[in-house]
């Protein structure tokens, strides 16, 4: 019931409609432009590269901002205090919020992909690599969780927006730039180790890495990462990938629940 109400609220927001429109538009643009010039080839091409970039750019941005603002708005407007008068645990609230937001974004993506397929059908068919679709799903379930954590931490909508933007730019750009800058002074093997650490502590890199692993294009990352990619290509590594992904979902949610409880106690 709670999930339904939440879902309704999120879907009603102008933001979401805008996001759906934007995604449909961007994807179609990529597909059409590339379809004009290039033959269809398996593997890492500019088409998949731009798909990947757009996904990693836009999806986390919208998920983080919308997710965090939705929960911070609840806190700010007193809606949460109202909810508290119902017999509902914090955990249930957070979980409900999470499920609702994930569902909302899934719907957005389905709309966008449906539109891409339609336009693709007009152009004689496009391929939507299955790995990209799965990556999109992973991106949603990880970043909604992070967004909720940020929202609980921020408590007001404005702060949530600002915080989301800061975190987003760190994850997407600043950490990479910092690594590249460090790479100019340190040795190759040290840079390689730092990057491997980053893969595990930066969800954006984690998803990007996952894309290359599961689409069997690990060689794109270069020979320096042969050992890591080989590990994650093994059955044990794949299980490991699953576990870490789940941790990325569960840990922020647990932390959010804890923060929420502690915030009330004060």
């Amino acid at each position, binding site marked *: 019931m709670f999930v339904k109400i939440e879902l309704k609220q999120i879907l009603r927001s102008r933001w979401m409609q805008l996001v759906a429109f934007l995604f449909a538009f961007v994807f179609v643009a990529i597909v059409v432009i590339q379809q004009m010039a290039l033959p269809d080839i398996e593997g890492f091409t500019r088409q998949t590269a731009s798909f990947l970039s757009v996904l990693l750019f836009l999806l986390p941005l919208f998920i983080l901002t919308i997710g965090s603002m939705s929960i911070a708005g609840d806190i700010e407007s007193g809606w949460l205090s109202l909810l508290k008068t119902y017999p509902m645990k914090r955990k249930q609230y957070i979980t409900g919020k999470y499920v609702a937001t994930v569902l909302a974004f899934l719907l957005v993506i389905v709309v966008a992909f449906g539109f891409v397929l339609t336009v693709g059908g007009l152009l004689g068919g496009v391929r939507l690599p299955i790995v990209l679709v799965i990556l999109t799903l992973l991106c949603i379930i990880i970043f909604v969780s992070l967004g909720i954590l940020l929202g609980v931490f921020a408590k007001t909508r404005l702060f949530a927006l600002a915080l989301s933007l800061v975190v987003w730019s760190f994850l997407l750009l600043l950490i990479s730039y910092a690594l590249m800058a460090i790479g100019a002074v340190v*040795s190759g*093997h*040290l840079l390689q180790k730092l990057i491997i*650490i980053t893969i595990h502590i930066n969800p954006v890199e984690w998803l990007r890495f996952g894309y290359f692993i599961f689409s069997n294009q690990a060689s794109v990352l270069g*020979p320096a990462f*042969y050992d890591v990619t080989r590990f994650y290509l093994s059955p044990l590594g794949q299980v490991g990938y699953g576990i870490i992904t789940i941790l990325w979902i569960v840990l922020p949610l647990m932390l959010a629940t804890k*923060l929420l409880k*502690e*915030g009330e106690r004060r």
Partner: protein
Amino acid sequence: MALEKGDTSVTRWIMIVIICGVILVGCGEKTYLPREINSETDVCEVCNMSIVHNEYAGQIVLKNGDYEIFDDIGCLMDYIELNGDGEVGAAYIKNKATNEWIDVYKAIYVYNKNYWTPMNYGVIAFATKDEAKEWMNDEEEGQLFAYRDLLTLNWGIHE
């Protein structure tokens, strides 16, 4: 309360990262041990050939802990000639007789333009003079060299 907790965990993380960093850097600088060749990914730093003839391979461990792999002693010498050996922590070449890593600076070399090597430079390394002599008994006779002779050898031109 929440903030405090956050603070301690953040500082702990930073400490861990710093310690890891120190360990990583520290490890790299003490000893320069040779590493195994991975024929899937290793290519010669100089000529780009993949390493398929392991028994001729060489490697340089730089002082910063990076490895440079070579397919032939000639390519290794080319690298040293180009970059100097200021940054070189250690340099190894495979002993043709045993296929084990030996120190480039202490190895015994045999040269004959008819010896086949991956780059056809015709120089083969051994740990001892006996091994070199044994090789020459089986193959053609060659000139015995020490490391310093390699520095002045006219690589690649053997008409």
